[in-house]
């Protein structure tokens, strides 16, 4: 049950309606009973017995005793022949009613406290999970950096140690090794910086269909070599968004190259653009849409939640650093967009990119 910022319990509209409806039915039923028996049973049936039952369940013995006494008094009162009960009976009866409502208030308060407590516990658990998740990502990141940088670093330090004892003809080789491995480390660092870099540079008007065409043109040769057929289906109406075309091209290339690598014996990659509507925090919004679909090996459902994590890769060692999709994710996030994935093992994978349309992007960043 959601708790508002003051710690009070918000009861949903549906629960309120249901309670009122049940109350109305019960009232009607008791009224009929009153009419048939000629005695006033309303109080006993509607309040005394339910409250007694609740106090019993809540473990309050005193509350239960009060409820039983109040119930019996009320019944005696209702069913007695005399229309004017003895003063002591009437007094006890009114006190019983008072005590009953105090018991009710106690029950409501206990229930509310229980709800708030449960909600706090839930929030604590969610926070712990989030923290564990963050630690997990940092751990993966650290392990990834260690893996990628450890070997080149070792080659550089080892080369420095070997130089004094190296043969003269080996010196050029050692120099080349130091250069190569340094640039390898530099590449990893640049990719990591891409991962956490800031947005906003070189933002222009981008037509999604054109973006698809220019990106695929760059990759046609690679695709042909892998027996992969690329189909671009541009939407009839041009879809405009605001963004950094080079970065968006990088995202699309990543997806297309992943697609090619997912089809070792060839296949088809279909790309199309368009407009779609999605619900978010404040109502329905239109988004520019880019879809990249392959007929490859698919992604195991156990891997799906991890594919956007940095350094997660299912490719062979050396074939991928596991940064491509996480960088793509970060780029799209900077653009106010998002990426979704659906995959069936053995059938293929579909990536869906959503980007705010030009008009909406301007409204957000005028």
């Amino acid at each position, binding site marked *: 049950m959601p708790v508002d910022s003051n710690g009070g319990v918000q009861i949903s509209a549906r629960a309120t309606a249901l309670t009122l409806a049940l109350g109305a039915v019960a009232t009607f039923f008791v009224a009929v009973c009153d009419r048939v028996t000629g005695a006033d049973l309303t109080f006993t049936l509607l309040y005394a017995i339910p409250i007694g039952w609740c106090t019993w369940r809540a473990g309050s013995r005193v509350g239960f005793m009060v409820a039983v006494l109040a119930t019996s008094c009320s019944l005696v009162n209702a069913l007695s022949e005399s229309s004017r009960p003895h003063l002591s009976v009437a007094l006890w009866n009114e006190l019983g009613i008072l005590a009953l409502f105090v018991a009710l208030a106690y029950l409501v308060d206990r229930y509310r406290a229980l709800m708030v407590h449960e909600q706090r516990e839930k929030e604590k658990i969610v926070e712990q999970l989030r923290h564990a998740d963050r630690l997990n990502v940092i751990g993966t990141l650290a392990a990834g950096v260690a893996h990628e*940088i450890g070997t080149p670093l070792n080659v550089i330090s080892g080369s420095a140690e070997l130089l004094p004892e190296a043969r003269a003809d080996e010196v050029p080789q050692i120099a080349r090794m130091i250069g190569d491995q340094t640039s390898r480390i530099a590449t990893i660092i640049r990719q990591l910086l891409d991962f956490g870099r800031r947005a906003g540079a070189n933002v222009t008007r981008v037509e999604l269909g054109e973006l698809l065409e220019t990106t695929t043109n760059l990759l046609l040769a690679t695709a042909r070599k892998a027996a992969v057929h690329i189909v671009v289906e541009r939407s009839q109406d041009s879809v405009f968004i605001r963004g950094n075309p080079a970065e968006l091209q990088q995202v699309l290339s990543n997806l297309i190259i992943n697609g090619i690598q997912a089809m070792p014996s060839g296949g088809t990659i279909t790309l199309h653009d368009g407009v779609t509507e999605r619900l978010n925090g404040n109502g329905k919004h239109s988004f520019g849409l880019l879809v990249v679909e392959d007929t490859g090996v698919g992604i195991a459902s156990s891997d799906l939640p991890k594919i956007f994590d940095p350094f997660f890769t299912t490719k062979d060692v050396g074939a991928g650093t596991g940064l491509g999709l996480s960088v793509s994710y970060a780029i799209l996030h900077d653009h106010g967009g998002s990426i979704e994935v659906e995959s069936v093992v053995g059938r293929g994978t579909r990536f869906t990119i959503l980007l705010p349309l030009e008009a909406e992007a301007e409204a957000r960043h005028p």
Partner: protein
Amino acid sequence: MAHAAQLLIVADDNADMRWLVRAALRDRFAEIIEAEDGRRLFWELVKCTKTRSASEVVVVTDIRMPVYSGLDVLAIYDELDFRPPTVVITSFPSKEVTAAVDRAGARLLAKPFATSELRKAVDACRQ
């Protein structure tokens, strides 16, 4: 140097790393073979089982390699009934890795290591 081991097999997917290990240890071995992935390392070991005793071979292997990892190959020493002295070099010696290397009776060297550490580890495991 009169060592029993005559052959060194260096397995790492980084060619420069293989060259470096070879250069650091070339005085100590009569023959050095390079393997660029776990499969090649595996086949070199299978060949050795026919021609040499395990004490005549030393293996220096990375863990993260294409096809078979270094740990995959360590795990089949028992199957081959061939347990050459082995130094495992890795950038990320996690608990699982350390445990697996210990189980196989191999030595672990964390990258980046000094050439002198590599030489010491190889000499120690040949005794």
